[in-house]
C-alpha cells in the first residue's frame, strides 16, 4: 500500500517553545490511524499541520508523495472535524452540512441526497432546519462530523470527534465511524485521549507525549509490547517498577530475582519493569516470593481492582476474585508477564505534570 501522508522531521515552535519535536509519521492509504496522548502533547497541532492551518518551522509534509508545505487548506483533499466543532452560526444544520458541496457547486439534487444520507448516519433526521446554536454539544459534534464526512475526502482528520457524547452514543458512533471509514475507503487520522477508543478502532496507534512520538504500532503491539514506561502507563493501567537487569533473562525487582524472557540490555543495567495488573494472580503468601497486604478492593464491573502493598511498591492487581482487605497475600506472575524496557531519559520522565501554562 502507498503512503497517503508522510510527515518528515516536523518541528513546530510557539513563542520559542517546541511543541512538536521531529515528528516522523507515515500514513498508509485507507488506514485508520489514531494519535493518542495526554492533553497538550501536540495532537491537535499535528492535525493542523496536515490540514494546512499552520506551517511547520522545519520539516516536510507529503500528500500522495508530493510535497504540500504551504499549500492552503482549501487546496488539500483533506477535511477536518474540529475539536471545538467550528460550525457556521448563521446557517442551519442542513446548510452547515451542505456547505462544502455548495462551494464545490455540486448539483442541488446530489446535495440533497448526500446531506440526507449524512443526517441519517449521525442520527439527526428532523433537525435540518435547526440553527446550530439550538443544538446540544453532542448534536453539534455530530453535525461537525457530518459536515466533514459529506465531502468524501481522501483523508479525514478527526479531533476528538466523540468527546462530547455519552458512553452509549459514543460506542454507537465508534462503530458507525469505523464502518464508514471501511465502506468509503477514507483514510482516518483520529485524535483521542481515550486509550480504549484508540485500541478498539485503529489499525495503527501513534502514542505521543510532549511533542515527541513515543511509539507507533498496531493496537496489539502497543498494548503487549510497550516500548517504554510512558506507553505502558498510558495504555491501560500498569505496575511500573525500577528493576535491575542482572543478566539476560534475569531481573531483580524489589530485591528479589525473577526469570524473564527479555535480554540484550547488558549486565547490571537499571531498567523499567512493567507488569500488567491482569497478569498477576493472587496466591497464598507461602506460594510466592513476593508478599503484601491488601490495602483496598474496588469492584469495577467485570473485575475487582486491588491495591496491594508489597515492600516499597503499591501493586495494582485485577482479578475476578476479590481478596479480603487487610489480608496477607502472595503475588505471582510468569516470566513472559514481565516486560522489560529501557529507562526513559530524565527529561522524558512521565507522571509529573510540568506546569507550562501560567
Amino acid at each position, binding site marked *: 500500500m502507498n503512503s497517503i501522508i508522510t510527515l518528515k522531521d516536523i518541528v513546530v515552535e510557539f513563542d520559542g517553545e517546541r511543541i512538536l519535536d521531529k515528528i516522523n509519521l507515515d500514513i498508509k492509504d485507507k488506514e485508520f490511524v489514531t494519535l493518542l496522548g495526554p492533553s497538550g502533547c501536540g495532537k491537535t497541532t499535528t492535525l493542523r499541520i496536515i490540514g494546512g492551518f499552520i506551517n511547520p518551522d522545519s520539516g516536510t509534509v507529503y500528500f500522495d508523495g508530493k510535497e504540500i508545505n504551504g499549500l*492552503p*487548506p*482549501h487546496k488539500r483533499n483533506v477535511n477536518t472535524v474540529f475539536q471545538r466543532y467550528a460550525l457556521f*452560526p*448563521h446557517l442551519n444544520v442542513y446548510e452547515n452540512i451542505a456547505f462544502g458541496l455548495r*462551494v464545490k457547486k455540486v448539483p442541488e439534487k446530489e446535495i440533497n441526497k448526500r446531506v440526507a444520507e449524512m443526517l441519517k448516519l449521525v442520527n439527526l433526521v428532523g433537525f435540518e432546519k435547526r440553527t446550530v446554536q439550538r443544538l446540544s454539544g453532542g448534536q453539534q459534534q455530530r453535525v461537525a462530523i457530518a*459536515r466533514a464526512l459529506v465531502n468524501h475526502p481522501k483523508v479525514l482528520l478527526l479531533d476528538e470527534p466523540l468527546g462530547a457524547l455519552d458512553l452509549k452514543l459514543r460506542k454507537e458512533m465508534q462503530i458507525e465511524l469505523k464502518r464508514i471509514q471501511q465502506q468509503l475507503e477514507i483514510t482516518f487520522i483520529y485524535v483521542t485521549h481515550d486509550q480504549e477508543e484508540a485500541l478498539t478502532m485503529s489499525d495503527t496507534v501513534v502514542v505521543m507525549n510532549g511533542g515527541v512520538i513515543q511509539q507507533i504500532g498496531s493496537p496489539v503491539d502497543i498494548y503487549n509490547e510497550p516500548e517504554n514506561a510512558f506507553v505502558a502507563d498510558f495504555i491501560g493501567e500498569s505496575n511500573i517498577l525500577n528493576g535491575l537487569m542482572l543478566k539476560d533473562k534475569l531481573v531483580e525487582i524489589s530485591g528479589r530475582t525473577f526469570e524473564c524472557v527479555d535480554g540484550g540490555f547488558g549486565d547490571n543495567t537499571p531498567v523499567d519493569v512493567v507488569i500488567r495488573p491482569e497478569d498477576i494472580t493472587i496466591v497464598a503468601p507461602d506460594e510466592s516470593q513476593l508478599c503484601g497486604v491488601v490495602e483496598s478492593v474496588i469492584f469495577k464491573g467485570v473485575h475487582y481492582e486491588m491495591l496491594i502493598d508489597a515492600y516499597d511498591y503499591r501493586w495494582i492487581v485485577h482479578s475476578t476474585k476479590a481478596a479480603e482487605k487487610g489480608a496477607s497475600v502472595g503475588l505471582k506472575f510468569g516470566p513472559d508477564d514481565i516486560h522489560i524496557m529501557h529507562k526513559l531519559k530524565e527529561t522524558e520522565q512521565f507522571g509529573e505534570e510540568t506546569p507550562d501554562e501560567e
Partner: protein
Amino acid sequence: MKNKLISAPYLVWMVVFILVPLLMVAYFAFTDKDGNFTLNYVADVAQYSQIFVRSIWLAAIATVICLVISYPLAYILTGMSKNTQSTMLMLVMLPMWMNFLLRTYAWMTMLGNNGIINSIFGFFGLGPYKMLNTEGAVVLGMVYNYLPYMILPLYSVMVKIDKSVIEAASDLGCNTWNTLFRVVLPLSLPGVMSGITMVFVPAISTFIISRMLGGGGNLLIGDLIEMQFLGNAYNVNLGAAISLVLMVIILLIMTIMNQFGSDDETVLM
C-alpha cells in the same frame, strides 16, 4: 420588583427627555401659530421634496462610500496583531476628538480655488478646478466626518467572528473570496446594518457640512430645518413638520434595511 425599582429612573428619563419632546414636535407640526389643528404645514413639506431627495441621495452616496472604504479596512484590521489593532483604532478615532467645525473648516481651505489641492494642480499646469461648493464636497465632508462611525461597528462585529469558523470554511474548500462572501459577510451583517444607521442618519440631517462645503446651492434638510428655527425664515411649525416627515422617512428606510438584513438580529438604531 427590584428590577422595576432600578429601571424607574431610566423610565422617567425616557419619558421626560424622549417621549415628551417627540410629542411636542408632533404637536407643533399639526398646529398653527394660534394653536389650532391644521395639516397645512405637513402638506407644505411637499414643496421641499427636491431638498429631501437631494439629502437622501447625498447621504446614501456618503454611506455607501463609507461602507466600501470601511469594510475591507475592518476586515484587514482583525487579521493584525493585537497591538497593531489598537494603534490603528486610535488613528481611526483620533479625528473624532478634534472639533467638528474645525475639521470641516480645514476642508474648506483645502478645496477652495486657491486652496492647497488646486495649488498643487496649478504647479502641473492644471486647473483650477471648482471643488468647493459642489455636491462632491458635501459628500466628501460627510465621508470624512462619519467614517469612524462605520469602521467601529464593523470592526467590533468582525473581531467577534470565531477564527476557527474561518478555518472551517477554508477546510471545506473556500478560497479567500468565497470565505468572505459565504461566511464573513453574513456574520458581519449586524455590523453593516448598525454602521449604515450610524452614518446615514447624521448625514441626512447635517447642516454644517452642507453649509460650509456646499455653499448656498446645495441646501439639505438640515439647513432647511435650521432656517425655520434660527434663520430669518422663522417658522417653528413648519420646522417641526419637516422634522417629523424626516423622522418618518428615516424610520421607513431603516425598517426596509432591517428586512433586507438578517431577520433575527436586532440592529442598533
